[in-house]
């Protein structure tokens, strides 16, 4: 029997046009809002793994040295890597890397402030993963939005340059909480700024106790060797 009006018709839902007889239904869902992105991210990860590639997501504010690090790293890392570059406009970053003999593909996001798993998937169509061991995703320069999106990489590397200030960890907690490795870049400038590594450590300890912190400068070969070793260690884990 129909529960709305008590008639004997079992199925007459299309007859219920009277708004007073409309059913209000509450549906409990419990669904991740970024479920589709996360699903695509998982797909990207499987694609990397099928090709024995470890992927790292590089995030930081604009100008803290992501591209510079990638330009130098190939001299220290005994593995072949490719880079997916994300920027709002231009292919300058990819051009810089290609000029150094590093395979790079530029994603232009237009006005989007972050890369998502779908954009990385698109970029993967342009990169041959077979000959490489490591893939870096250089995210759009931004300490906020990229933190909310899993792009399908295995580890997150977050860079903070000395001129930006040691207060940024506390100011952008979501980003620094997501990091597996935090690089303090442009350490060669530290004497010109009121920047404290102790303060960085203190803030990271509260937010992300298991993270590795490394002070680096491309002018200090030892520091980049340490980054290369960290990557190598995490690359072998796969």
């Amino acid at each position, binding site marked *: 029997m129909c529960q709305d009006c008590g008639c004997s018709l079992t199925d007459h839902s299309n007859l219920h046009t009277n708004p007073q007889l409309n059913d*209000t*239904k*509450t*549906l409990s869902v*419990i669904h*991740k809002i970024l479920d589709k992105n996360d699903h695509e991210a998982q797909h990207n990860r499987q694609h990397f793994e099928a090709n024995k590639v470890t992927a790292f997501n590089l995030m930081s504010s604009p100008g803290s040295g992501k591209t510079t690090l990638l330009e130098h790293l190939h001299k220290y890392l005994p593995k072949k890597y490719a880079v997916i570059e994300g920027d709002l406009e231009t292919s300058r970053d990819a051009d810089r890397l290609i000029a150094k003999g590093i395979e790079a593909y530029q994603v232009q996001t237009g006005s989007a402030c972050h890369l998502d798993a779908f954009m990385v998937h698109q970029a993967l169509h342009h990169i041959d993963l077979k000959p490489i061991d490591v893939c870096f995703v250089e995210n759009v320069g931004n300490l906020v939005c990229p933190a*909310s999106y899993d792009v399908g990489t295995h580890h997150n590397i977050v860079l903070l340059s000395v001129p930006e200030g040691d207060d940024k960890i506390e100011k952008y907690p979501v*980003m620094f909480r997501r990091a597996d490795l935090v690089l303090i870049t442009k350490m060669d400038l530290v004497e010109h700024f009121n920047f404290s590594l102790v303060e960085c450590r203190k803030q990271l300890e509260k937010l992300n*106790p298991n993270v590795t912190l490394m002070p680096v400068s491309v002018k200090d070969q030892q520091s980049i060797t340490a980054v290369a070793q960290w990557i190598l260690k995490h690359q072998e884990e796969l």
Partner: protein
Amino acid sequence: MHEYSIVMSLLEQIEQLAKDNQATSIVRVDIKVGVLSGVEPDLLQRAFDTFKLETICKSAFLNIKLQPLIIKCRQCDKETTLEQRNVICPLCMSHNTQVVEGEEMMLMQLEMNT
């Protein structure tokens, strides 16, 4: 401003759920936003009110529950709700903790007319 992208994903998800349940309109959308999820509830609200107009949610009310950070300590085994954005156990000061709540964005409930 990635709240726009997040609202688009939310609306897309609701459209699908509405279709699956033969809904004619959506009355209320309940979401849960963690304090460490990386989105700003006010901006999310504004983005929702702007972009809902073209969708089945055009007269829906967005109800945002701000989820505080809850950690479980692996040392003393206690669960605590934290006011500050850190993950240290306030009871035993251990750093060996696990975040239970406060980092995710979830769609929880939909009230719909069918």
